[in-house]
């Protein structure tokens, strides 16, 4: 026997810790030398025996853990819950029913849980109805000039499940439809004459006001084009830097709102991000607020 039998090597082989070349060498030696094979197998038998004993010991430990765990009521509650939710395998549901026939106390317990579950569902419906009322109250606080609202269509007699679906959509429409978001962040500017300074071009001032009117009327595409035009003209006006900056900020934000209304989130996002990234911008906070809402789940539901 040329290969030296070492129990440490065989233990590493048994545990799969032997390097690939060492493993190959050992296996080759086992193939070529019967004595080596017999020796290795004898050690492996012992090591397997130890592992089996270790597993028996672990199994016994689990039995004691199981004894502790199965004394808890949560086992039965979980089973009853799965039964009431009709989630049990038919064979196990049948076992449960047979057991209830034999054990009136269990049958009574199942009935009690059923009542409790129904009560929770009723409570949940009630809570949801309360929330709907609250949303409605909130929504009435806002002006509603831009769009027609969906909530008129919500039927009082709709089932709870239907209400959940409609209610979710309704809530989203009420609070996250693009029109509503625009309305929420939009502030009508002061007229150029009041905004602080004398603007030479009366025509520009008039167009500025008319364009804002277009935005307020929901004529977004027209407003967007008109804001772009006003921006181009702004630099040629004889206006001091302070006022020019004020109009510039107003036009940028208003144009982004018009873009959102006309072409949706993807079109408006770059402009809003540019505003939100400028801490000096008058509309920085509003742009950020709007971006947060555009990224929300509710916006996706509503639009």
């Amino acid at each position, binding site marked *: 026997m040329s290969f030296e039998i*070492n*129990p*440490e090597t065989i*233990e590493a082989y048994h*545990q*799969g*810790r032997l390097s690939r070349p060492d493993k190959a060498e050992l296996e080759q030696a086992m193939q070529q030398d019967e004595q080596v094979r017999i*020796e290795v197998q*004898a*050690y492996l*038998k*012992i*090591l*397997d*025996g*130890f*592992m*089996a*004993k*270790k*597993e*028996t*010991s*672990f*199994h016994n*430990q*689990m*039995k004691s*853990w*199981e004894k502790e*765990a*199965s004394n808890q009521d*949560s*086992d039965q509650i*979980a*089973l009853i819950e*799965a039964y009431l939710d009709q*989630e*049990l*395998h*038919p*064979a*196990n549901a049948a*076992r449960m029913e047979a057991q209830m026939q034999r054990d009136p106390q269990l049958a009574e317990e199942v009935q009690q849980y059923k009542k409790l579950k129904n009560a929770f569902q009723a409570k949940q419906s009630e809570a949801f109805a309360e929330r709907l009322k609250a949303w409605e109250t909130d929504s009435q606080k806002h002006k509603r000039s831009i769009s027609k609202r969906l909530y008129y269509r919500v039927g009082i007699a709709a089932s709870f499940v239907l209400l959940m679906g409609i209610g979710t959509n309704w809530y989203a429409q009420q609070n996250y439809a693009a029109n509503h978001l625009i309305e929420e962040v939009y502030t009508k500017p002061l007229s150029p004459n009041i905004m602080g300074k004398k603007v030479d071009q009366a025509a520009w001032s008039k167009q500025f006001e008319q364009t804002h009117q277009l935005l307020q009327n929901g004529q977004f595409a027209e407003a967007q084009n008109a804001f772009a035009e006003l921006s181009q003209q702004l630099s040629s006006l004889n206006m001091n830097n302070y006022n020019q900056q004020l109009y510039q900020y107003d036009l940028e934000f208003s144009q982004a709102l018009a873009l959102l209304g006309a072409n949706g989130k993807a079109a408006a996002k770059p402009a809003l991000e540019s505003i939100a990234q400028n801490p000096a911008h008058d509309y920085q906070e509003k742009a950020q607020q709007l971006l947060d809402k555009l990224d929300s789940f509710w916006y996706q539901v509503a639009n």
Partner: protein
Amino acid sequence: MSKYHADEQQLQKLQTGNEQEWKAFYEDIRQPFRLFFLKKTQLDVPAVTELLHEAMVIFHRKVTSGSLQAPLSSKLSTFLIGIGKILARKKALNQKYDWEDDIPEEAVQPEIDQQQEREANARLVDQLLEKIGSPCNEILELFFIKGFAVDAVMETMGLPSEGATRKKKFDCLKKMRSLL
């Protein structure tokens, strides 16, 4: 970083063989495992508990032998249910299971088939431990059954160094072999 970072941390704790860690893992997995198989198979409560224990033994072997290592490709609970699935299939050959989920069945079949051989080897080790006597039987039990590390065995047995403890372990193993 793997997306199963929390499970990998838990695996690391289980690899130490600490009984409290294993007990906590058992208590966490017990209810979801049992409910899964009560919902998906015709196995009753005692059979599902037995299935859990068998799956846990295989899982324990994979963890303590180091064959299950990070990075993990699934949560530990998913892995354990995967082992349970193949065991359940083996228990009820005439049943067709449609699991309706993404949990893959874990390939453990050969290990199940070796059960009888394992039990025979365990009995053999019992006999040999009795024959070799103290302190070898104690040292080998600490190493191979209780899963103690070298320093813990050294301390428990009052041995002078880790090297001496390691040498004693393999001397005892040789002695055991000679009794075969």
